[in-house]
């Protein structure tokens, strides 16, 4: 599986590099992801050096995903929930961009690089509070009755 993944990664880089000169024009030099809420600590901006995160965030997430899912490790360092909580921020009007929008932290780059991810088929693309708020506004009567009654 590794080899296939690596191959895919190389392919993506190759395609990306080839497409770069064609796509970028003088005005837009690349994606503009929104700013994070805060620095990870007093000394570090993110949970790993920025360059490292840009290059390898998927590896960190993949590793953490199996640890959490299968072994119950609940640390925050490479947790997708924490990424979303810190990086997905509302605009001036207090509105959240959704995954797929260029303004959403993840899709700002992923749209640009045309790399598809399926994280958000199952995970929420919004921080927990925003997610909860939107959910209850969409389902005002949630939990009032038992679903699926005959």
């Amino acid at each position: 599986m590794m080899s296939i993944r690596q191959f895919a990664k190389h392919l993506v880089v190759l395609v990306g590099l080839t497409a770069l000169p064609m796509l970028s024009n003088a005005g837009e030099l690349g994606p503009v992801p929104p700013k994070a809420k805060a620095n990870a600590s007093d000394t570090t901006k993110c949970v790993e050096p920025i360059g490292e995160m840009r290059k390898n965030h998927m590896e960190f997430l993949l590793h953490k995903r199996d640890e959490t899912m299968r072994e119950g490790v609940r640390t925050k360092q490479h947790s997708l929930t924490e990424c979303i909580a810190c990086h997905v921020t509302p605009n001036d009007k207090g509105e959240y961009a959704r995954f797929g929008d260029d303004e959403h932290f993840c899709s700002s780059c992923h749209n640009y690089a045309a790399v598809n991810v399926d994280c958000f088929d199952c995970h929420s693309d919004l921080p927990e509070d925003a997610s909860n708020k939107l959910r209850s506004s969409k389902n005002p009567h949630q939990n009032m009755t038992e679903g699926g009654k005959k």
Partner: protein
Amino acid sequence: MSNSEQTNNYRRKFLAQSAAVAGLAIAPGIILNQVAHTKADADKVTDATRWGMLIDTNKCNKGCTDCVTACKTENAWGMGETHSSKEQQAQWIRKVTITDKQTGHVQSLPLMCQHCETAPCVDVCPTGASMKRADGIVQVDKHICIGCRYCMMACPYKARSFVHEKIELQKPTAPRGIGTVESCNMCAHRVDKGENPACVEACSKAEHGAMIFGDLKDANSAISIELKKHGGEQIRADLGLNTGVRYQGL
């Protein structure tokens, strides 16, 4: 193996376990019944614990669905699946009414994943997405679930649901999505923090106290003490699956 034999085996097993734990624990002077319940975030779950649940059907109120509601709120299901028919909507836990054909005796109980020791869903899953944690919690790793639904065919309890449409705004602790299979995971995220599953909490909040959660391998846990004293049956005990969820008064 008959049911009582199996229960006896089971008791013997955790008596032996608790003796071992006691031996270890006495030296550093740790309080015994707390051992399994305090897990640091960085710790991995181990097979020193086996999480289980005991449900007293005599205490379970027939009209009450608080456990189901709590599960829905905790894990954000039972809403948002607007395209799916009732038959297609997911249900992680449900209240079941059973009527004895001979006597007419009616009982009510919550039914969810029974967290089998030898789970058929884990056996049949081609990719290993249907898995059991070291501490006995059975769940689906949706990252590698291909949506073949063989686990749903294999589960004797109809505990699994397939997600028939796109889902959004999930809880961070309960990811769920299109094309994958899901079920009760005993609120693993709460259990890892030392809390009770949402259904158990709701049941005691409603002052029914029909559900006990705890470590089956810890002889001093409330669930073990109660099981030792009054026993607990498995649904479809004939299949010999050694379920983690037990019932009284069946």
